[in-house]
């Protein structure tokens, strides 16, 4: 069936089985591959997207249910060249290693920022409990989100271009 919805502020129309997972429609029909598949059963949060501002697992949403709705993926977080504060903080604090979980964390953190402009560290941990990372041990991710949301934690040293170059070579 033809399903129309809004993706990152742009009207899109797809021809898909109504029960097709939103995750597959995003990645395969719309080529929006920023959203990753981890477990495919709602445990890991890698496929987190916002529907009408609420974080959900795109692997558990039948596409028919987003008809007429606003969907935001990691591709929609930055405005033009300006990164979302959470993205900037992940860069500063080294909140990513292999990167598979990162889009889901960023989107989940973006929902938290929209709802609680100054959350406690515990609220950050709770908001991110549905996102699993198998590399970082969470500390840097939580640091990054707390920093992005509250400015409470100062970075040890902001990365220069050389750091970012090195990071991109080793990933």
């Amino acid at each position, binding site marked *: 069936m033809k399903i129309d919805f809004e993706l990152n502020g742009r009207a899109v129309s797809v021809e898909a*089985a*109504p*029960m*097709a*997972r939103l995750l*597959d429609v995003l990645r*395969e029909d719309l080529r929006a591959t920023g959203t990753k598949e981890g477990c*495919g*059963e*709602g*445990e890991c*949060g890698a496929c*987190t997207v916002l529907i009408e501002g*609420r*974080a*959900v*697992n795109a*692997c*558990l*949403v*039948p596409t*028919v*249910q987003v*008809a007429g709705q606003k969907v935001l993926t990691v591709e929609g977080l930055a405005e033009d060249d300006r990164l979302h504060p959470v993205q900037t903080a992940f860069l500063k604090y080294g909140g990513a290693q292999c990167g598979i979980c990162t889009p889901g964390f960023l989107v*989940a953190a973006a*929902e938290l920022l929209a709802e609680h402009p100054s959350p406690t560290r515990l609220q950050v941990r*709770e*908001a991110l*409990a*549905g*996102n699993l990372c198998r590399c970082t041990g969470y500390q840097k991710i939580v640091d990054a989100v707390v920093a992005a949301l509250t400015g409470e934690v100062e970075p040890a040293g902001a990365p220069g271009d050389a750091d970012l170059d090195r990071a991109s070579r080793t990933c």
Partner: protein
Amino acid sequence: MLTTSQSPVYVAHSLDEALVLRAAHPEAMPLAGGTDVMVFIEAGAIDPPGFIDLWAARDMAGVADADGGLWIGALTTYTDLERDDRVVKAAPALVEAARTVGAKQIQNRGTLGGNIANASPAGDTLPVLMALDAEVEVASKARGTRRIPMDALYTGYRTLAVAPDELITRVFLPTPHPADVQHFRKVGTRLAQAISKVVFGARVRLEQGKVTDARVAFGSVAATPVRCPRVEAALVGRAPDPAAADHLLVDIAPIDDVRSTADYRRTVAARTLRSFISSLA
């Protein structure tokens, strides 16, 4: 992507449309937030010949204050429950349960009606609904509505006393007595994203130091969520006495499965119960 169901989906935009579709397609599976149904499809565990999508029936969501209690629409999400001041005040144990379902992404999408309809013995809200004397309203186009007490809803493992042309429409929570103490406790592998090994809901009325009314219910310890009448009877009429927990083994029938053992469940259920009763004294 392992499996995409090619079955037709009938989209309901209102409760009335949902009941018409349910009568026309009794073989189709009702679909709310999808957080259980999509997992079952992906695992190849179910392949229904059709679905009735209720997500767009917005009149099935939300909380209303009427008839001496709260009516909670079947499509109300866990996040909606957590944020509704009336639910927070009248049913703190239900809010606690909602906060332990999966994590944020599941709470934003999963619904109270879905938790009830999925009928898992481990459903996190189900023992709490039993403890709060909740009633489940079901409706059909042909026969209108009826109310089923929560403790009469499950007739066997994942079996509900709901007819093929009926839908779960809303849940009634009577206003609690001012002397009621509510309790919720879930024991899983970790705090978030865990399916319970033991889940416990209770409501005890304490007046002049004595228990005058008690509801004790457990999940994950029998084929359905269960009320514990022997424990309740042992509690009523005296000061809170942890020895009432000794009757628990008559009321529950846990099994060994992938998440835990019968022995662990018996031990932990009794300890969570004893700990709650001790906290009342």
